[in-house]
């Protein structure tokens, strides 16, 4: 692929900004990159311990179920809460220089994506090792097992684009209305319980299911559960509702960003 000079600059710039995000995060942490694994593992241990007693989820391996949902959810929640005030935090930069503003939001998301992919990769490797050495899968079984994991690719792409769209929207709006940041913090907290991460959808009465698909994260998390554990997507025909919401949010986020970013300087 050939890039124009402008595209090259944009990509290089995004790369350097992302690198800054990743490097700066672990600069003074003695355990450094180990935190990528320690964080979600301890979260899973605590939550698994607590929720096992309260939520009668009928899945074989609740801890794995929890981990498979928590990884993408954490990526989403951490990205959204960190990007929403990002333009405001980087006001010094925005007020002094002309550069592609979207890189501020994208670099945060990409650095989170990097952490997410590392953790996911470790999980996938552990799962495959388990099937290979402890459950003694035959070659064919293993091919099917790994083949199903290919569902993770669309799942990651959907998760990433939804996060980018929503982050651009909230970050752009937050420049003018600082309430947005508080709304997002609150919403993410509630949103977590409106998404089947600690429970499975089939635990709820059936008439509620379609409503849950208005939340795009339901379909995305279920895709992760399917790819990693083989659990079915509860209502496949409603998945397109989730897809529509995702595409609309991306469109809206981009439009609002384009319109607002011209005047960021006035409001910061």
């Amino acid at each position: 692929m050939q890039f124009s000079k402008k595209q090259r600059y944009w990509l290089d710039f995004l790369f350097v900004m992302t690198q800054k995000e990743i490097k700066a995060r672990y600069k003074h942490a003695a355990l450094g990159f180990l935190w990528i694994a320690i964080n979600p593992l301890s979260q899973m241990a605590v939550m698994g311990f607590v929720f096992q007693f309260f939520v009668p989820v009928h899945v074989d391996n609740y801890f794995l179920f929890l981990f498979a949902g928590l990884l993408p959810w954490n990526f989403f929640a951490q990205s959204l809460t960190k990007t929403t005030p990002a333009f405001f935090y980087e006001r010094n930069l925005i007020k002094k220089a002309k550069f592609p503003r979207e890189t501020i939001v994208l670099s945060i998301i990409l650095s989170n994506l990097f952490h997410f992919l590392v953790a996911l990769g470790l999980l996938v490797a552990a799962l495959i090792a388990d099937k290979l050495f402890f459950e003694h899968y035959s070659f064919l079984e293993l091919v099917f097992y790994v083949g199903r994991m290919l569902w993770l690719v669309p799942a990651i792409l959907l998760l990433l684009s939804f996060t980018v769209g929503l982050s651009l929207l909230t970050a752009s709006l937050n420049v003018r209305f600082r309430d947005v940041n508080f709304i997002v913090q609150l919403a993410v907290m509630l949103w977590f319980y409106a998404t089947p991460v600690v429970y499975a959808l089939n635990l709820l009465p059936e008439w509620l299911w379609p409503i849950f698909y208005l939340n795009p994260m339901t379909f995305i998390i279920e895709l992760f559960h399917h790819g990693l554990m083989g659990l079915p997507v509860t209502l496949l025909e409603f998945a397109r509702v989730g897809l529509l919401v995702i595409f609309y949010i991306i469109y809206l986020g981009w439009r609002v960003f384009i319109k607002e970013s011209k005047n960021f300087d006035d409001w910061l």
Partner: protein
Amino acid sequence: MTILKEEIIRRNKNHGEVVIDLKNVGKKYIVHHEKQTLAEDVGRKLRFQKEEEYWALQNLNLQIRKGEKVGFHGPNGAGKTTLLKIIAGISAPTEGLVKTKGRIISLIDLEAGFHPDLTGQENIFLNGFVIGMSKEEIEAKFAQIVDFAGIGDFITAPLYTYSSGMKLRLGFSVAIHASPEILLLDEVINLGDEEFRKKTKISMDRMMNSGLTIIIVSQWTDLLRSLCDSIFFIELERQVYF
């Protein structure tokens, strides 16, 4: 209406094409006496209250040619910084057209784009990108930038260990190596210790005598007269609607 009165100091005949062209440019700000919240905004819209407006620039026409050294002078609030921001592309005009040609570097805040936890070397890349240099350019000029900044071994240390003078040195060094075609200065920079001031003076003099287009905003008319080919005096004369 923003009125510009031009004072020509020396006529330089060799000026080429127009590199900055402003046509009927206006910039409107919304005045808030307190930071706006969503509830207030919705409340005001429901009561059909109009937002308080303030035109920092209005009906401004300006052409600057390649190689010109232009000064702007005016009282506080006359819109000098707004003008620089619009030329630099940091802020978009509310009305009118802005056309510029060539890379614009503004020496407004030299430390913008620095991250305290990254080393001097990493910050050169970050800051270089922020002001619009490409990766190849930064790599090609890296040694020169480090050399000009002259901060020794600190270049591999994180920025929070730097003194404020060292940060300025590094910022200035990156900016002047960005090979700008249009240079924007908000007040003339006077930074660092004696030795570095000499260095900056030499490089500023060199830029002043080169084909670079330079725009300086300052309160000091004497200084502007000594440096510029022409000075625009911005006069405040506009109606403010409340």
